[in-house]
């Protein structure tokens, strides 16, 4: 009996052969017949994706139960099952790590979830390390990642919605939010943007980011990327929405502001007085990483009068005999630094460290001795690199890396005037950016005075009783206020 279109065949063998036909060549496809006193059928699965031991146990249990009860339906084993009514659905289930159990004469089959998808164990966060606070990071399994969030946020209002994205290879994408806190418009907009994604497959959540971003062409990250469950929970409690994809160890959170990209989870785990200088430093370092080479070029090519005379004498001495104009020297050094950084990232860790050390020490020193670059330029480019390493958000680091090049060109063409003009244009651009409707420079522009408690400074926790107003949360207060409750009098020691 031949199979008509996508309908499930009446003979289990035909179902198995149709699945095999659609997947062939497929050497890891396994087909095993089974039979009870009344029924016969086949089990189809992909080796490696299914736990073979559990499958055998389940099949044995099926045979025993079928013999004993003598009923027509396939008995359900002690695993998650799903009815599949078409060949396409059966193929999807097989690819999804299920074993498809087809029975002769039945109009549908069962998909038993016995998946044994290879996944690594939960490990420390490598991209966002901290000294204090939780250390664990997401892995490539969505269920594990959701469990990690649930473990931290034991709230019945934590809601998880799933979407399937990907035409060829469907991928499950979950959005997480705290009901009653998140603004409904934001939630609706997230759902709308995810539903509009048309893509053949999703390898990582960062692919989704480009589809849902507000500005199409912007180097600044308008979604927050994190691999730390504690950060996700903190974001959810502020009224933001998190997005996770199966197979991705990263979570996206929206909306995000520029200031948020300069805060680290550690700011909230250390004493608030320590967070202030660190945040100030990060703000300075961001602008330093963008502007430092440009200012150096501008001072050496146009605005030498701004340098103190002894410094100018020293710089002139360093620069004597360098065969390139300052702007070319700067661009060359910056490209070399980026190449070294890229090499250090791509190579295996042990080799990468060696490349970094060899690159910075040996090649840099040799270049200076050979008179190709001046020591001052090496210091400036290295300082720029170090400044960018202080930024906690990878997206912002990449933005700073990209932005320093146009700034150097502007400095080489127009001096400080060019840097100033480009700086104004950049600030204008940043002020015009939105992340899911929230101004990117909030709470500085527009100004939310109360939200300034967590921008440059990090106020003590007892002062931050409200959620950030810039996200327009439904419930502004983190803890409901009790009008009748009075503050307890301060305890005094009375001998």
């Amino acid at each position, binding site marked *: 009996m031949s199979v008509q279109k996508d309908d499930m065949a009446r003979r289990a063998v035909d179902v198995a052969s149709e699945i095999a036909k659609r997947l062939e060549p497929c050497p890891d496809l396994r087909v095993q017949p089974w039979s009870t006193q009344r029924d016969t059928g086949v089990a189809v699965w992909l080796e490696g994706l299914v736990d073979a031991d559990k499958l055998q146990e389940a099949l044995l249990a099926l045979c025993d139960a079928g013999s004993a009860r003598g009923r027509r339906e396939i008995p359900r084993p002690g695993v998650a099952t799903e009815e599949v009514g078409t060949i396409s659905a059966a193929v999807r289930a097989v690819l999804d790590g299920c074993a498809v159990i087809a029975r002769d004469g039945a109009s549908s089959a069962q998909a038993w979830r016995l998946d044994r998808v290879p996944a690594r164990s939960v490990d420390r966060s490598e991209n966002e390390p901290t000294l204090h606070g939780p250390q664990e990071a997401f892995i490539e399994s969505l269920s594990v990642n959701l469990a990690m969030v649930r473990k931290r946020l034991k709230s019945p209002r934590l809601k998880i919605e799933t979407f399937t994205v990907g035409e060829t290879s469907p991928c499950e994408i979950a959005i997480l939010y705290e009901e009653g806190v998140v603004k409904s418009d934001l939630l609706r907009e997230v759902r709308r943007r995810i539903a509009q994604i048309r893509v053949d497959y999703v390898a990582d959540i960062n692919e989704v980011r480009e589809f849902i971003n507000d500005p199409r062409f912007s180097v600044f990250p308008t979604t927050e990327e994190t691999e730390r469950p504690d950060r996700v929970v903190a974001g959810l409690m502020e009224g933001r929405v998190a997005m996770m994809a199966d197979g991705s160890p990263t979570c996206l959170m929206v909306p995000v502001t520029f200031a948020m990209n300069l805060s680290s989870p550690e700011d909230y785990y250390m004493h608030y007085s320590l967070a202030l200088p660190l945040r100030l430093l990060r703000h300075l370092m961001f602008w330093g990483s963008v502007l430092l080479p440009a200012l150096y070029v501008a001072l050496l090519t146009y605005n030498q009068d701004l340098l103190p005379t002894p410094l100018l004498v020293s710089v002139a001495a*360093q620069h004597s005999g360098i065969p390139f104009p300052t702007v070319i020297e700067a661009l060359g050094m910056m490209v070399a630094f980026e190449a070294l950084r890229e090499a250090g990232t791509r190579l295996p860790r042990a080799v990468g460290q060696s490349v970094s050390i060899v690159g910075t020490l040996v090649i840099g020193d040799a270049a200076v001795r050979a008179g190709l670059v001046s020591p001052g330029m090496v210091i400036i480019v290295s300082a720029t690199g170090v400044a960018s390493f202080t930024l906690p958000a990878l997206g912002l680091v990449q933005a700073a890396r990209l932005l320093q090049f146009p700034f150097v060109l502007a400095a080489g063409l127009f*001096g400080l005037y*060019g840097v100033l003009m480009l700086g104004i244009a950049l600030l204008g651009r940043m002020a015009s950016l939105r992340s899911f409707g929230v101004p990117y420079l909030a709470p500085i522009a527009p100004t939310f005075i109360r939200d300034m408690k967590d921008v440059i400074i990090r106020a003590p926790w007892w002062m931050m009783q409200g959620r950030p107003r810039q996200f327009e949360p439904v419930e502004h207060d983190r803890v409901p206020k009790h009008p009748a409750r009075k503050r307890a009098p301060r305890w005094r020691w009375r001998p």
Partner: protein
Amino acid sequence: MTRRVLLRKRRRAISATLLCAALATGCDYNDIDHLYIATGIGVDREEHSVRLSMDLIQPGGAGNPATGENSNSQGNAPDWIVSADAPTFEEAMSGLQAKLSHSLYLQHNALVLFSEDALRDFSPIADALERDRQLRRSQLWVVTPTSAESVLRESTGQSEPISLVIRDLVDEASRREACLASDELHVVKALLRPSGVAPLAAIEEGPDGSPEVKGLAYLRRDGKLDIVDRARLLDNAWWLGRTLDVREAVPWTEGGHQGVMGVHWLRTSTRLVVDTSGRSPKVRVVWRGTGEIERWQASEKMSAHTFAALEHAIREDVKHRLAEALDHARAVDMDAFGLTNACAEKGIQLREGAWKRLQVEYDIEPHIVHGQLASTTPFAQEARGGGGSS
């Protein structure tokens, strides 16, 4: 307005901005390698010409920090001097530029060293210096009684450009005697006031070939110059304002013996008060000073009487110094201490030379702190009277 129109407008605005930026600054490109950075100018006057000597940084001379080579191992000086003659200052500058393969960069010029002769015809040079937009108004104007070129050329053994050495030398001296801070802005301002006299630091080449502060020079608007040597510097410095941390030897008589005591003036200040109550204006010189006696050995224990005698001696000494300085100024016909200015501020316009006939009285109050009075050393007996008892 459609999005396309908006984009087109934005593109036009950006293009216009970039074009303006290019027109505004693009031509000022001057890489540091293509500059001769001047740190000092020496101005000499010859028969019918001005001779300019430019102190230029020699980058190789400062050594290469990367290779660890310094100027001494290379045998190079950190700077070099280029000179040119021309009838006018501007032509001399053009002559200098003609000798140089890169453009001359004057914005770091820290010093203008005039020879005494150069100041004879001072106005055109001052005019040229004031007009040059590259030159900073903070550059020091300094005088030398010898040739400016020789001071710049023949100073040896310096690890930094000689102009910067002279600037630091004068800066350090002006920290003690404020009147030595003779930067262009102050000098020009002083010359334009009714007195028309400005104090300038005077330097000369020392016996070891390095420059040293010779004293103070008074420059009158008409180019007349009077140099006060270092021995009389303190007297003049007191007239001209504040001093900090200066030392003075005051004559002192005890039991028929003549000696000196060392006074360390922590700070002094002087101001002129014009009294117009009488028929003719009277100038009161208000001098206040706080100091300590550093070197003094009394044969008896300190008493109120001895201390009063000490203070009296100091007061007399200060008065004597101020009066001497004023007498000298009157003798050379130079209103160096701004008596005319003080009267003008009170609305009294003096005729030319009338300042010399002004009645001057002194209001001197030295305040001696007791800190050092009790201290002696094992050598105090030998050091009594400063070793110069007679």
